[in-house]
């Protein structure tokens, strides 16, 4: 086998260009550190008209945007979803896990919901409150300065609310609510559910002269061509490339972190997807940011004499404590919203209002909370519109189905009359939920793949039940009718399959005790002093907050730590 070795030795090799890797690349390269950024997918720039899907109409796709190639439809900006040709994974019998991968510069930050919530003081010390899971070795005070910097650097809109566990930041002003969101506000207040402006990293106001301002097309999931929303590609990596300190390797699948005779890392090996050849590059420090499960996979596949069961795995905990956000939802039909006057209400790509967790778990039969996301409105038609043109006729004692000219009117009549409520909650991380190497299967690059074992516990089922009860009450208080049958115990209360919410974290968890954790509080492997992990793998728990903001704040903190270690010549 031919292996191509580069002569140059980098200060730092960063693996993966998403939220964590993009941030590390920016901070390190701006400090004069020579970085190799290795990304498994192609170059991507949302401003490139050849890659752009923003502002495309459904008829510009031959399948009208249907989800044949991309799970969330043709215009969704992710190269790869829960399934990628030639890159399989499996789940142990009786369990199920769905693993989303975006193989492209910027990774999943090109398609994410931009929901940017800080973890609160309680979220770092949940075990103190309910005895479950584990506390983080750091507190809110440790990470607060980085959240503050992040707000100003990347931009997030929101409002100061002075809630203990929903810390405020440096917010841009939020957009005004849409009509269906006013209905939600009304219903939520009646139900005593806290409701406030959402917190999304979308520029409602200028933060610098490099990025444009939101022009309200509602399509952040397509990645913004004027960089009005945050993607790691457009806002971190592409600007960093201009500084001359970063070598970018695209279409390069890292399979192993390489080590010397003493077990310290000295580079990575990867397979160039274009020519199938193996490459090795050398580096003083390796920073892994391939996404929680991919990072675990690389570490577990990096076996050597010094690290016989995988790099940094003396605790045997790599891959363990894998956990995703819980999800459940319910649609609500609002009869008052029939025959709407049509105007442009695209707004930002996502909700303008939401409900943070508003209850005290001590008074409930499940330990951790959830927030509620609100969807709806007169959206850009996509494949699927009009499929059941008059199903809501049943609420008026009218026949459903039929054919003829009246169907036109039915589609118009019911357009924009549905609100969708989604609960997103915190799961308890369990050692029994994990990913591990499947020694029987390689992907098409010859790299051993992952096998998952993940089951929700009663804590999550009870939480989903509470979501469903809440949604039903909210539906009626909005003047609406909940759609479909209410999910019951038999349907596991409609809870998502683990991995479906695409917030998987926890596979190299952080802690002070090397027996009980994989990385230390600076995200450095306990076992190897020159390997760091800056994606969501070090998360001890993930609150009911979307992980991206915390991934980036931690990556910034770790990057500063690396710079100081380099300066002290400790590494």
């Amino acid at each position: 086998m031919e292996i191509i070795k580069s002569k140059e030795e980098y200060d730092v090799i960063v693996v993966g260009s998403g939220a964590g890797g993009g941030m590390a690349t920016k901070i390190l390269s701006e400090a004069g550190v020579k970085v190799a950024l290795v990304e498994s997918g192609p170059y991507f720039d949302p401003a490139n008209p050849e890659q752009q899907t923003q502002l495309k109409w459904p008829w510009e796709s031959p399948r009208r945007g249907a989800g044949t190639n991309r799970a969330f439809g043709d215009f969704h900006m992710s190269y790869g979803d829960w399934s990628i040709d030639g890159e399989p994974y499996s789940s142990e019998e009786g369990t199920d896990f769905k693993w989303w991968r975006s193989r492209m510069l910027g990774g999943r930050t090109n398609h994410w919901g931009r929901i940017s919530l800080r973890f609160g003081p309680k979220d770092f010390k949940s075990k103190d409150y309910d005895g479950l899971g584990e506390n983080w070795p750091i507190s809110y005070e440790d990470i607060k300065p980085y959240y503050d910097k992040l707000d100003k650097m990347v931009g997030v809109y929101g409002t100061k609310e002075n809630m203990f566990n929903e810390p405020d930041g440096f917010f841009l002003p939020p957009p005004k609510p849409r009509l269906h969101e006013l209905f939600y506000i009304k219903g939520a207040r009646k139900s005593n559910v806290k409701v406030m402006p959402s917190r999304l990293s979308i520029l409602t106001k200028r933060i610098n002269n490099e990025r444009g301002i939101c022009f309200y097309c509602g399509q952040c999931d397509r990645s913004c061509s004027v960089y009005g929303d945050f993607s790691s590609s457009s806002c971190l990596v592409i600007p960093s490339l201009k500084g001359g300190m970063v070598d970018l390797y695209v279409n390069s699948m890292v399979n192993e972190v390489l080590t010397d005779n003493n077990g310290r890392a000295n580079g990575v090996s990867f397979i160039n997807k274009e020519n199938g050849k193996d490459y090795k590059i050398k580096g003083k420090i390796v920073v892994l940011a391939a996404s929680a499960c991919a990072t675990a996979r690389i570490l577990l596949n990096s076996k050597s004499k010094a690290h016989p069961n995988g790099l940094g795995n003396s605790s045997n905990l790599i891959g363990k404590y894998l956990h995703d956000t819980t999800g459940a939802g319910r649609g609500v039909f609002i009869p008052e919203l029939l025959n709407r006057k049509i105007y442009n209400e695209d707004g930002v790509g996502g909700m303008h209002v939401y409900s943070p967790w508003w209850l005290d778990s001590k008074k409930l039969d499940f330990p951790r909370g959830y927030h509620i996301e609100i969807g709806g409105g007169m959206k850009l038609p996509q494949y699927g519109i009009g499929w059941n043109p008059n199903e809501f006729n049943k609420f008026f004692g009218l026949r459903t189905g039929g054919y003829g000219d009246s169907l036109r009117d039915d589609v118009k009549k019911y357009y924009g009359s549905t609100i969708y409520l989604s609960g997103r909650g915190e799961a308890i991380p369990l050692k029994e939920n994990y990913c591990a190497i499947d020694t029987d299967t390689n992907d098409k690059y010859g790299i051993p793949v992952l096998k998952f074992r993940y089951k929700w516990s009663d804590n999550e089922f009870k939480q989903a039940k509470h979501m469903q009860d809440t949604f039903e009450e909210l539906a009626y208080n909005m003047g609406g009718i909940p759609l479909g049958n209410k999910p019951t115990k038999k349907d596991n209360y409609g809870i998502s399959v683990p991995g479906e919410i695409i917030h998987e974290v926890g596979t190299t968890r952080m802690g002070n005790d090397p027996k009980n954790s994989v990385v230390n509080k600076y995200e450095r492997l306990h076992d190897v002093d020159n390997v760091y992990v800056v994606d969501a793998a070090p998360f001890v728990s993930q609150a009911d907050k979307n992980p991206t903001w915390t991934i980036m704040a931690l990556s910034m903190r770790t990057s500063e730590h690396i710079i100081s270690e380099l300066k002290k010549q400790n590494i």
Partner: protein
Amino acid sequence: MKRRDSIKTMFLGSLGATLTLKSCITSEDELMLDQVWQYNYGRTYEELKWDYKVLTGKFFSNTELKSIEKIANIILPPNDKGNIKDAGVVELFEIIAKDFSTPAHNEYGEKVLRRGLVVFDKICNVRFGLKLLYCEDIQIKAVFDDIAFSDNNDEDLQEAIRLFAVYRGMVLTGYFTSEIGINDLGYKGNTPNVWDGVPEDVLKEYSVSYDEDWISRCVDQSKRNDLAEWDEEGNLLT
């Protein structure tokens, strides 16, 4: 340069970038570009190849396509706002039949879309001794009256009812995702604009309002271009 040529050039550029290690664009690539040029919507090379396959293969016979057209015109008759022909509905049937052909789609084209024609033909044949295509509209409507509504419990018609619902869904989704259909619907977005809240008359119509405290903290769109600055407490100054 004609629009078609300029888009083709763009595609060649993107392919060139994708195929960094290919020394030249092959004749197969050229052929592909010739077919997919009109769909310029940010595809990867693998996706382009799939589109090419979908756009060049043939699934339905011309007779079947005529049957689909006849059905579609009864499901959604033309009026002055638009028709299924301009909306490309029949073409969409052909494309979806090939596009949803993977095992994950359980051979949708064969088992659902073509099966629909077989089942509708059979009913017409039993009733009128003719395939659907050769029936009068009034005869076809008589059949649809029995299979277009979900409240018909006739055991023998359940498959036809299920398949008709798919045909109706395809026709309406095809219509309302076309340019003409979106105009008919009246959708106003997908264009740069500045959202500044629900129009006043709409708020009145629904007897809802913005509360003062909430709205006072929302973006002042006249200052959206001013660089954001905060005090140390996080209060926005600009």
